């Protein structure tokens, strides 16, 4: 069976967009082939900056015929008294393209109808695929689209040619005023002429002859091998940066690596400066020696062959030397004053129009660091360091080096702080407070770095939430989801850190003190709670937890705020316990209690936001707060009115559980908590068996509901069991 090859020829696409486009095209073509009854044995897609190519093996040259049955008018309407077809039947038959005599009667629940048997004749693949392949081109999504010429189509870059062949036949796909043919183009400079392709099989080898290596994996391997060989020639190796490698793969159609020289004098610059200048400005790879120190050379990848490589090398060396000369100048100029002096210029950098400058953000971080350290139980030298680092962590944003190379924010702060003799722990916290820089990145190694990283992000989140800006749909221009994700990643390992609402209240308080801004704290906390619940859910689902168990953990809990660590541990505990035989009965019992309360419209009102004083204090305070909360629930029960033995037994069991529940919750020992709560299952069931909760007598009913409300508040310290799906 023939092969299908489809090539979309474009002007140079952004390197970052091509990988996803290749996969989208592959999936789309695989789907449309199956849908059009032309399934391929294998579909593969490739891409370079100038083209996306999909190859489908063993595509039938012709669609098979299909027979389908179409219901028509009712038999009564279709046939006259004489049994001859009426106008309605003739019209229906004509519309379906069948003779009226071929209509048959069928019985349906609605009565007798006529039915036509229609045979869809299969079309040649070239005809059947033209429209869907065109639709596949425009269905690909890209981060940004553009228009060109006078046409109305929007695409990642202008489409300049299309080639579509099924075997040796052209499939006339039409997109953006271009009709596909059998003409392709080679490398833009090395083989610029158009050429004809006789057969689908011929395209890849013809492109290779014309300096186009279609397969990104092959280009990747070629770049890696060439660069490693070049590095080995000088006794070095390339510390691979996969992202940079990918970018190079999608910047070239025919990679040739070359090694260029760096003047020794530049190697005294901090390594991150050298590496970042090479990577961000030039897409060059650094080379390091056996000792890990940078060697005075780099590897760059040229889009082309090895002719005139010396010209390219000379140009690459010259431009890199100019970059390094700039960096050396900035480095020397920055070092004329200590890091702390750069703080003076922070008032020239805007953080957010309504939230003020970076100078104000810095003062808020200073205001926030102390209370946050206290809330997290950080004291002594580390608390001091957190305050110092809060004052310094934004200073490098006004250095010439960071203005020139923004990716070095934090890292330059660390380098300059160390050069100025600062406490190394403070210096490292400056660099660490931007971590994790992406969802795959590590969290800060030091406690001070983690505290500052949380403070910085909570300041941003509380500020934006305070002025009503939250991410929506796919739009998150200020990176708020990423900020929240960073906080979740850090707090997942921080049992001592307060809950999200407390953090938000502290951050909002800093806005009040520094900027004189007063936010609607309740709305702010609600917005952040939603955002964080999404991030926590996403993180736990990625770890393979059941969705319903995550939801149960999120909507329950021993406190009125979302403590990230506590929530994640509870969800993990539920996941661990859910296979146990006693899990389902316990869930059912707890859910039955909650459901009765809900139907009686007497579900306990969860206490509102914690006061500021609730933020402070460690685990002991948490225990006494939980105990107080549970005792309040217990006091709603009028014990002297508990007449039935099962009521008394349940009340005593529940009351007896309070301190143990509080301790287990405060110690984050949720398996133990589950065990304690499990003891309540039997007395709850006994109560349900023995009494009618919804008794006629109003006072009795109210008291029983109060008792169940008390029991429910105990169950809720672990989870909201009504969210658990029992199969």
């Amino acid at each position, binding site marked *: 069976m023939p092969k299908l090859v489809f090539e979309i020829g474009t002007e*140079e696409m952004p390197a970052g967009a091509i990988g996803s486009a290749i996969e989208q095209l592959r999936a789309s073509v695989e789907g449309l082939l199956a849908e059009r009854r032309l399934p391929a044995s294998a579909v593969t897609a490739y891409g370079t900056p100038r083209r996306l190519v999909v190859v489908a093996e063993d595509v039938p040259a012709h669609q098979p015929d299909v027979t389908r049955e179409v219901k028509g008018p009712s038999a009564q309407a279709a046939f006259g008294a004489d049994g001859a077809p009426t106008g309605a039947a003739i019209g229906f038959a004509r519309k379906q393209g069948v003779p009226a005599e071929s209509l048959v009667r069928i019985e349906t629940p609605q009565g007798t109808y006529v039915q036509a048997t229609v045979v869809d004749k299969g079309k040649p693949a070239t005809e059947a695929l033209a429209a869907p392949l065109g639709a596949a081109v425009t269905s690909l999504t890209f981060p940004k689209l*553009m228009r060109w010429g006078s046409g109305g189509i929007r695409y990642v870059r202008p489409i300049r040619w299309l080639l579509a062949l099924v075997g040796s036949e052209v499939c006339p796909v039409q997109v953006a005023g271009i009709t596909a043919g059998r003409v392709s183009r080679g490398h*833009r400079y090395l083989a610029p002429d158009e050429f004809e392709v006789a057969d689908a099989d011929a395209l890849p080898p013809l492109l290779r002859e014309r300096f186009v290596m279609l397969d990104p994996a092959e280009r990747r391997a070629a770049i890696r091998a060439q660069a490693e060989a070049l590095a080995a020639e000088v006794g070095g190796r390339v510390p691979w940066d996969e992202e940079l490698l990918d970018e190079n793969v999608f910047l070239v159609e025919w990679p040739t690596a070359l090694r260029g020289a760096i003047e020794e004098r530049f190697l005294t610059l901090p390594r991150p400066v050298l590496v970042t200048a090479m990577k961000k400005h030039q897409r060059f790879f650094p080379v390091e020696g056996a000792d890990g120190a940078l060697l005075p050379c780099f590897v*760059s990848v040229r889009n082309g062959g090895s002719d*005139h490589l010396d*010209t390219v090398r000379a140009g690459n060396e010259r431009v890199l030397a100019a970059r390094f000369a700039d960096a050396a100048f900035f480095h020397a100029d920055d070092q004329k004053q200590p890091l702390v002096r750069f703080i003076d210029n922070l008032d020239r950098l805007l953080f957010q*129009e309504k939230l003020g400058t970076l100078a104000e953000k810095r003062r808020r971080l200073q205001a926030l660091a102390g209370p946050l350290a206290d809330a997290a139980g950080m004291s002594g030298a580390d608390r001091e360091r957190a305050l110092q680092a809060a004052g310094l962590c934004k200073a490098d944003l006004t250095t010439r080096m960071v203005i020139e190379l923004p990716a070095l924010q934090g890292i330059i702060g660390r380098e300059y702080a160390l050069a100025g003799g600062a406490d190394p722990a403070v210096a490292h916290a400056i660099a660490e407070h931007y971590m994790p820089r992406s969802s795959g990145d590590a969290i800060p190694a030091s406690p001070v770095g983690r505290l500052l990283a949380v403070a910085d992000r909570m300041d941003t989140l509380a500020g934006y939430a305070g002025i009503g800006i939250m991410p929506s749909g796919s739009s998150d221009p200020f990176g708020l989801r990423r900020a929240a994700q960073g906080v979740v990643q850090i707090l997942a390992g921080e049992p001592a850190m307060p809950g999200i609402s407390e953090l938000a209240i502290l951050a909002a308080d800093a806005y009040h003190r520094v900027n004189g801004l007063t936010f609607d704290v309740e709305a702010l906390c609600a917005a952040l709670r939603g955002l964080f619940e999404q991030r926590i859910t996403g993180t736990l689902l990625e770890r393979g937890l059941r969705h319903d168990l995550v939801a149960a953990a999120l909507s329950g809990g021993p406190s009125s705020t979302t403590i990230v660590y506590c929530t994640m541990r509870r969800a993990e505990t539920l996941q661990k316990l859910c296979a146990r035989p006693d899990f389902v009965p316990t869930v059912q019992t707890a859910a039955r209690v909650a459901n009765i309360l809900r139907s009686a419209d007497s579900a306990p009102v969860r206490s509102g936001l914690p006061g500021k004083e609730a933020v402070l204090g460690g685990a002991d305070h948490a225990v006494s707060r939980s105990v107080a909360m549970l005792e309040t629930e217990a006091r709603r029960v009028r014990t002297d009115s508990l007449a039935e033995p099962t009521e008394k037994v349940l009340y005593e069991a529940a009351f007896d559980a309070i301190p143990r529940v509080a301790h287990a919750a405060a110690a984050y020992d949720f398996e133990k908590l589950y065990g304690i709560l499990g003891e309540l299952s039997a007395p709850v069931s006994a109560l349900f068996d023995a009494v009618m909760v919804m008794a006629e007598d109003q006072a009795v009913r109210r008291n029983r509901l109060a008792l169940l409300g008390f029991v429910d508040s105990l169950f809720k310290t672990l989870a909201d069991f009504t969210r658990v799906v029992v199969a």
Partner: protein
Amino acid sequence: MTFQNLLITLERYWAERGCLVMQPYDVEVGAGTNAPTTTLRALGPEPWNVAYVQPSRRPADGRYANNPMRMQHYYQYQVILKPSPDNVVDLYLGSLRALGISPEEHDIRFVEDDWEAPPLGAQGVGWEVWMDGTEITQFTYFQQMGGVECAAVCAEITYGTERLCTCLQGVDSVWDMEWAHGVTYGDVERDSERQHCSYNFDEADVDALSRMFAAYEGESHRIADQGLVFPAFDLALKCSHLFNLLDARGSVSVTERAVFINRVRAMSRKCCLAYLRQREEAGFPLLRGA
């Protein structure tokens, strides 16, 4: 290739390919894009193919002629092809060949670089063009101008003439590049560059500049409302340059900055909308040949 010959070669190349060769615009601009022959003509459906040298000023980029590549005053070569032709990239590569640059002997690549100019309400999509690692051209398909979606999309090709020429001459500094006849770029420009840096960074009278901004701004709005689009746009350009001077002088705070940009945008947007309306009322005269 002398600097002079580079400019002459580009003029001839683009003239032969259907461009009107314009003369530099005589109001201070930060880039060839800001000249009305680009900004205003980018609007609407009319075809427009022009090429011109544009002396450009960016006060904050000055380095007192001590940096080999950065200056507050330089010469852009600006080409506008509207609507962008299908072979626009090949046309551009042809211009490099005309300058003696064979793409197959170098590493010419197109690196994604989208462009935005908030004071003009303008944005575009395109590339930086690199030659052996040095950016020599900005290549942009305009998508929006004056906050208005472009009806026909311009390809804008902006050559960094000094970059290109230092590469061609193999010199490390723009100041050593030969302008023509043994006279260097430094001989021609260095004194002016230094004096302008002193003025921009150290001497400019902030109060006077601020008063001028306000005066030009008032005048721009007043006459734009009377339909005098071109003079109103010139005054908006004057304001844009005054803002750049104030910024270089270090006297613009963060909040003021946003306000200044909004004020310039309001002026230029008003001009863009009025220009588009006038062309429409005139029945888009240049569509006659299309």
